[in-house]
């Protein structure tokens, strides 16, 4: 782990925290609050790469566990990890890693659809992959019901994936970090 890895990880952990401290957007027609925090997961992987992205999300989760109110809506503390939503928290780390890994693979000729693919697979797919079975098991509601409950967040997450992809492509042009 180089000093640069550490500083980038800290920066993207802070960025994820800052996105959670922004006021929540209440979309009419959707009862669940839409937060922009998962943008942080996609950007952590897509801008500085897989290893630093995963590290950034691990640092962010360590700050949350330590008791800073950094999750959207001013929540925090170790309860987040052991409750029904704990899988999503671990999914953030895996999600950032996979987003970054795919972005690195698609780096040459990276465009909006490719970056969006990386964000959807990593930032949505991996987060749900860990979050939904965890919720199903801990709350004993089964996989199908847990998946149904998470479906409300999917449209918002897709919009965020496109937004993150636009930023990732623009940063590649302005200040590329991932070297190929």
């Amino acid at each position, binding site marked *: 782990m180089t000093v640069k890895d550490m500083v980038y990880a800290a920066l993207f952990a802070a960025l994820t925290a800052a996105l959670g401290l922004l006021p929540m957007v209440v979309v009419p027609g959707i009862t669940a609050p839409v937060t922009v925090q998962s943008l942080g997961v996609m950007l952590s992987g897509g801008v500085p790469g897989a290893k630093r992205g995963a590290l950034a999300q691990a640092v962010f989760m360590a700050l949350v566990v330590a008791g800073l109110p950094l999750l959207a809506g001013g929540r925090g503390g170790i309860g987040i990890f052991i*409750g029904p939503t704990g899988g999503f928290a671990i999914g953030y780390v895996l999600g950032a890693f996979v987003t970054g890994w795919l972005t690195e693979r698609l780096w040459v000729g990276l465009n909006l659809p490719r970056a969006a693919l990386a964000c959807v697979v990593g930032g949505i797919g991996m987060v749900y992959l860990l979050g939904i079975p965890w919720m199903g098991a801990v709350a004993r*509601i089964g996989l199908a019901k847990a998946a149904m409950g998470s479906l409300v967040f999917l449209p918002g997450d897709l919009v965020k994936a496109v937004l993150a992809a636009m930023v990732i492509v623009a940063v590649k042009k302005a200040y590329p970090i991932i070297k190929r």
Partner: protein
Amino acid sequence: MFEIRLSRITWLHRVPAGVKLLVLALAGAVVFLTDDPRVLGGFVGFALALPLLAWLPFGPVLRQIIPAAILIAALATFHVALGDPGTAALVAARLGTVILLAVALTLTTRASAMVEALERGLTPLRFVGVSPAKVGLMLSLATRFIPVLFALTAEIREAQKARGLEGNVFAVAMPLLVRTLRMADDLAEAIAARAYDGE
């Protein structure tokens, strides 16, 4: 620094962070492994009694547990609707216990004490190349970056307002990212120039 911890000191504040973490971990393990209603009832009683015994004020405790309480109530209702009140009680008892204990821990422990306890807990990972000192540096850098990000955002938004671009998300996000990435590079160089090796 902003944190969830209460500033009014109770006896629970004085219990070392490592001890509180250990109690939480043990209680979490027990309630998820047992089906015995007497044991579960004991832990629910302990979790309910702890905030009262420590004289934690109701307001902050409620603010922390309400989101979780809504979720637990929804899950319990779901199980009752399926005609399985036993599972409803089991799920509510398990989740209620760990969340109440976790809130009691968070409300009475300094973030810095938690970071220290985490660093100590990570010491065995030294053998796989994770140095606790490096973890500590990343955590403190990240907490310092948060206010810096907000200050930079305000500055850039003002500059873009002069150009009539204050409503454009990208006109703010792009300069913010490029400036903070450059800042991170400078900072990494400055740390490396002081021969930092993380030990």
